[in-house]
């Protein structure tokens, strides 16, 4: 007979021995005995439902040997066994014992010693952990605020905003530390009179925020190159998967009540495996479709002299191409496009260059970026990042200022570059030419870019 297990997310603070004991007793009465304890996921083993008494105690010495039970710790466990308590499991210093004897004497019979052990454990495992978390949250929040001020476009177009979740974590961490210290103060005072104090239920909500932080950071980093539509589509696929899983669990619970348990189990497992395969396949295909594919590869010589392979895309919808300005003849033109979109900003960068196989690449190039700021109060900061943080002068001489703001970048006060920036409404445009464009070429480029669609599509 195969052993049956189930996992649950448990948000107990590990010093909360009172509620952990109650919870484990309830689980045992429902037929689930604690089997392993992780930081968030606890595993339970199926048993015959029975009334079991649990005791959560904190081993006073350092546990450095990981899961290996040292002689000292084994001595502690043996002593508890001789007091009628069976060792069940431990998570570092937290040890869980159980007994079927309702009248077994408690493991801790001296309140001050119990408080001392809990505090020693809590200091190492909880308080310092939360202090680190608080420090990390303050650091990351400060970092994001600084980056937002300095480079709003770079910060807002990729995954960094996920760190905005850190203040939430910060609030929960502070609440948890204060709750613990409050309990400790009361319990210590009561222990002086020989009284034991129950711990209060403090749920580690911050764990729920660390999950989005870990997974969201990775996912958003990936999705920041895609359209919001693609993100929603993928989220839809994930949610459908979760929904299917919930349906599967519901069907499983219902069918398992029937007599043909084993056959049903095998069928359900097959069904689940097929369902998962379909899900993975469809999300794989979706991802493959969503990511732009290289049109072809060319060998390019880098500035350091080594050859490398470059993906060359053919963007038919590019608002501007080198061929709009110059004759490229038989030369290969590489076209790269990077699109990033989050809620407040979307930006597309195009770069075009003529590529000559196995030769020095000193041909023509054209680079431009179109940035749309959806949140107007950010516009000035974005302009600062893209334009005013460089040496720029108004390009009054090309008579563009009547329609929109226009600037030319300079290497120093006297040396102009073939790089320009334009603003109209909430759109900021930056263009680099490898040649000195004529006024007509510039006006053509600006008008094309100001009216272009800033989208992901190729």
């Amino acid at each position, binding site marked *: 007979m195969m052993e049956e297990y189930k996992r649950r997310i448990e948000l107990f603070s590990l010093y909360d021995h009172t509620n952990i004991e109650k919870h484990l007793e309830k689980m045992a009465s429902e037929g689930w005995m604690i089997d392993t304890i992780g930081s968030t996921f606890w595993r339970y083993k199926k048993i015959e439902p029975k009334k079991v008494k649990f005791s959560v105690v904190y081993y006073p010495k350092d546990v450095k040997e990981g899961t290996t039970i040292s002689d000292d710790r084994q001595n502690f466990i043996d002593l508890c066994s001789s007091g009628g308590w069976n060792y069940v499991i431990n998570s570092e210093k937290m040890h869980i014992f159980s007994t079927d004897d309702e009248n077994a004497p408690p493991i801790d*019979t001296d309140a001050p010693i119990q408080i001392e052990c809990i505090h020693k454990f809590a200091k190492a495992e909880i308080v310092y952990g939360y202090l680190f978390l608080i420090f990390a949250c303050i650091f990351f929040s400060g970092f994001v605020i600084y980056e937002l001020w300095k480079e709003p476009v770079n910060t807002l177009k990729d995954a960094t905003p996920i760190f905005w979740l850190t203040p939430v974590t910060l609030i929960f961490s502070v609440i948890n530390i204060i709750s613990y210290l409050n309990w400790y103060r009361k319990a210590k005072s009561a222990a002086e009179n020989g009284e034991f104090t129950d711990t209060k239920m403090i749920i580690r909500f911050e764990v729920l925020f660390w999950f989005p932080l870990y997974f969201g950071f990775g996912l958003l980093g990936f999705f920041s190159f895609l359209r919001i539509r693609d993100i929603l589509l993928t989220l839809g696929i994930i949610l459908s998967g979760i929904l299917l899983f919930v349906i599967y669990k519901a069907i499983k619970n219902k069918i398992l009540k029937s007599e043909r348990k084993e056959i049903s189990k095998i069928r359900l497992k097959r069904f689940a495996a097929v369902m998962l395969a379909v899900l993975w396949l469809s999300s794989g295909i979706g991802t493959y479709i969503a990511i732009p594919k290289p049109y072809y590869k060319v060998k390019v010589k880098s500035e350091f002299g080594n050859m490398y392979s470059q993906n060359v895309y053919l963007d038919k919808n590019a608002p501007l191409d080198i061929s709009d300005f110059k004759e490229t003849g038989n030369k290969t033109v590489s076209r790269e496009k990077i699109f990033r979109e989050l809620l407040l900003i979307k930006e597309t960068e195009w770069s075009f260059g003529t590529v000559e196989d196995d030769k020095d690449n000193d041909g023509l190039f054209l680079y431009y970026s179109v940035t749309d700021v959806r949140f107007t109060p950010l516009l000035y900061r974005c302009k600062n990042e893209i334009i005013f943080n460089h040496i720029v002068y108004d390009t009054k001489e090309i008579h563009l200022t009547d329609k929109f703001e226009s600037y030319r970048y300079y290497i120093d006060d006297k040396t102009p570059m073939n790089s320009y920036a334009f603003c109209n409404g909430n759109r900021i445009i930056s263009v680099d030419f490898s040649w000195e464009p004529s006024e007509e070429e510039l006006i053509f480029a600006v008008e094309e870019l100001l009216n272009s669609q800033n989208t992901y599509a190729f």
Partner: protein
Amino acid sequence: MPRAKFQTLTEQMFYILLCLKNECCGTDIMEKIKSITDGRIILGPGTLYNLLEQFVTEEIIVETKTEGRRRSYILTEKGKQILESEYNRIRKQADDYEKLFREEQ
């Protein structure tokens, strides 16, 4: 501080030290206390483990032998003095009680 803590003993500490007049292991201590006090004092194994560790650190008791994982302990001279001083303190309390009530009678 542990030293200040052991200037007066709790009942549990007192009986542990009393049992360790003769060499004894942890399990025996629990049984002996139960027997001496007719079950009045209940000593939890976790508390016993902690107190034994603290007594050893403070050189109130000393580990005499280890058979497998079974460790035996015995009182040191310092331990005997602490126990005696606690006995005298309790005795003095009892004397004071009796003196006061006899005067009233």
